[in-house]
């Protein structure tokens, strides 16, 4: 199956508002997940579009004309909560019954402190407010904890500080700025976002990239996954004051980034993936160097990370901390490793098996959604990514690394999906009657998962926040765009 779809805009079924709401809740009740749900402003009014991933792996989509008031489905399907808030912020549509209709990115001159906050009341309840400038070298966000002593009843996360207006910008600025801007939607996911954008462009002009290019893209994406997972395991280890793994992994992560730099000169893989293929080729000498450096980095990673699973001090802090139950995870539709750690079988590489992941398999693990699970799943994925990269590079087919990208189809839409290291990346694009991009929607996996972190903190200790936060390691800029 393909991990993208494209078609004429007219193929998107246009429903009555009430039918739309019914159909949406019907699909969600059957277990569909929202890939993207957004508003587009037209002269005739505002239209809502929704793209769903059904349990069967099919992608379903439909639209409607929005009213100034719509019934909120969030109380029944919490996975919608941010989507509805986003639409509301962008258009002024009110979703009646939404439990917390705060802005998402505080785009219109408001700040997070102007949002409304859940408050727990009682004699000994206290509130802790942190951020936007918080902790160490980290992106800005605002966190409010309602606590009784050390216990957290509720954590509310308000973001938006990193909002730089990428989605609007990519359609208004010069075309040559588009790719670099999308690459930096989340800097640690540059490859993931660039690949998703490339899929969109290729879908819109019906180009099929060479096998060689897709193997190289795969290698870059898995390197990105490796670097981040290894780095996060190190950071988790640091958060429980187990320094050997923290120190080793910090360095090994850097080495993986340096391997990415062998491909394209940039440690984050910037300018590697371009529409039509990849910018840089590899020769035998370079493959050899990548392989040997990867082998030794991997060997170091095995020795460093294995320590974690044997140390009581580590396990004692990881296990049963910050549990997100399967039920909650499903309701919020957590994606990526965080979702899998709660027991959801949700890997786009496995669902679509699109090139170069045709042979991708993953065994479901019995994990219970605690910090340990979110750490251990990374370890499993590190092993897998290493094998994938080795496999692709050892049988790299010959072929053109870049193909010409033609003009885009007119009045069309395209949606593309990529399993980034944090999970499901989804981009949607519309073109106008000249074949120019007229609308672009980016969804970083963090958009789904931030609420998961809030849930992990329910009834946890406030001192476990850094540990829980790291176990998700979500993107602020990917959320804020």
């Amino acid at each position, binding site marked *: 199956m393909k991990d993208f779809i494209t078609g004429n805009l007219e193929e998107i079924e246009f429903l009555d508002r009430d039918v739309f709401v019914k159909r949406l809740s019907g699909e969600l009740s059957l277990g569909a997940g929202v890939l993207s749900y957004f508003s587009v402003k037209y002269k005739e009014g505002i239209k809502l579009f929704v793209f769903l991933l059904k349990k069967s792996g099919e992608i379903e989509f439909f639209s409607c004309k929005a009213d100034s008031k719509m019934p909120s489905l969030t109380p029944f399907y919490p996975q919608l909560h941010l989507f509805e808030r986003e639409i509301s912020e962008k258009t002024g549509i009110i979703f009646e019954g939404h439990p917390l209709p705060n802005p998402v990115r505080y785009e219109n*001159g408001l700040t997070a402190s102007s949002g409304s906050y859940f408050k727990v009341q009682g004699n000994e309840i206290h509130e802790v407010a942190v951020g936007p400038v918080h902790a160490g*070298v980290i992106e800005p966000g605002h966190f409010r904890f309602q606590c009784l002593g050390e216990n957290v009843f509720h954590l509310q996360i308000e973001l938006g*500080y990193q909002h*730089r207006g*990428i989605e609007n910008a990519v359609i208004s600025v010069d075309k040559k700025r588009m790719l670099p801007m999308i690459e930096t939607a989340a800097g640690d996911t540059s490859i993931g976002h660039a690949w998703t954008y490339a899929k969109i462009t290729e879908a819109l002009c019906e180009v099929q990239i060479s096998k060689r290019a897709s193997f190289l893209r795969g290698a870059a994406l898995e390197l990105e996954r490796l670097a981040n997972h290894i780095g996060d395991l190190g950071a988790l280890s640091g958060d429980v004051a187990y320094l050997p793994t923290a120190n080793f992994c*910090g*360095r090994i992560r850097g080495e993986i980034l340096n391997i990415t730099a062998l491909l394209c000169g940039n440690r*984050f893989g*910037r300018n590697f993936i371009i529409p039509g293929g990849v910018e840089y080729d590899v020769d035998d000498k370079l493959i050899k160097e990548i392989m040997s450096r990867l082998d030794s980095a991997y060997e170091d990673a095995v020795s460093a990370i294995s320590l974690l699973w044997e140390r009581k001090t580590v396990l004692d802090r990881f296990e049963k901390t910050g549990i997100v139950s399967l039920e909650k995870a499903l309701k919020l539709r957590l994606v990526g490793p965080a979702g899998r750690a709660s027991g959801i079988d949700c890997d786009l590489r496995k669902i679509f098996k699109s090139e170069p992941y045709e042979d991708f398999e993953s065994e479901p693990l019995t994990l219970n959604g605690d910090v340990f699970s979110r750490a251990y799943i990374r370890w499993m994925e590190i092993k897998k990514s290493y094998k994938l990269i080795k496999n692709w590079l050892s049988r790299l087919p010959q072929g053109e690394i870049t193909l010409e990208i033609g003009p885009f189809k007119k009045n069309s839409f395209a949606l593309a999906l990529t399993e980034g290291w944090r999970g499901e990346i989804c981009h949607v694009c519309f073109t106008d009657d000249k074949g120019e991009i007229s609308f672009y929607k980016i969804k970083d996996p963090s958009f789904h998962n931030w609420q998961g972190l809030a849930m992990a903190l329910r009834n946890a200790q406030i001192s476990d926040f850094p540990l829980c936060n790291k176990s998700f390691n979500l993107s602020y800029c990917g959320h804020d765009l």
Partner: protein
Amino acid sequence: MIKEILARIKQGYRTLPFPFEKIKLSERYKGYPKLDFSNLKESEIEELLSVCPNSCIYKDAGKINLDLGNCTFCAICEKKLPQAVKFSKDWSMAFSSREDLILSQDTKKKSYVLREEIRKLFGRSLRLRQVSAGGCNACEADCNVLGTPAFDMGRFGIQFVASPRHADGILITGPVSENMYTALIKTYRAVPDPKIAIAVGACAIGGGIYRNLPKVKGISEEINIDLYIPGCPPNPITILDALLRFIGRIK
């Protein structure tokens, strides 16, 4: 414990020999550019002026300039006109003023001008609060790694701290989004005098990729930048080198 010791032996001593030896970065790394516009045809000049996604290459008073401050080192210009722009492997890039980042073909690479009072105050100990303001988090990541054993900036007395009140200055990344504008100023004000400010990455220096976007405001004039470190993101070794030049540990 024995396993930790064995692992430690296996991992070995991994701190880079920098600054005592020059570090070699990957073959495809792009560092400080060499420029030569002298043999360009009219049409090539036009192409050069229009090729950069961040409009870093422009004409000013008849002279072609390349603004290294906004450059993301994407090398698109080099690919189009290799005779005009050539990125070297030189990763040492620390500049004391914004003008030093505007390169033309006869610019000699400016070296950082050490200020004696900075060396005296911070030469043996520099504590920085990092403020991330609307960027993509890659600059932050490459600042973060300076704490890992490979770079180990702690051995030079440099450290990131959590509170601006404990800091000697701030290190800014990101183009400064509207929503971070005030928080950045407040953080700066919270740092006790005498204080310094450092701009890391194209975003912080001039907006970079996000240049001129309506939601991007740039660093307030209230904040005086003492050190510019270009890149998108700068390689960690570039950042460390710049910090060491700044406090006078490398001359």
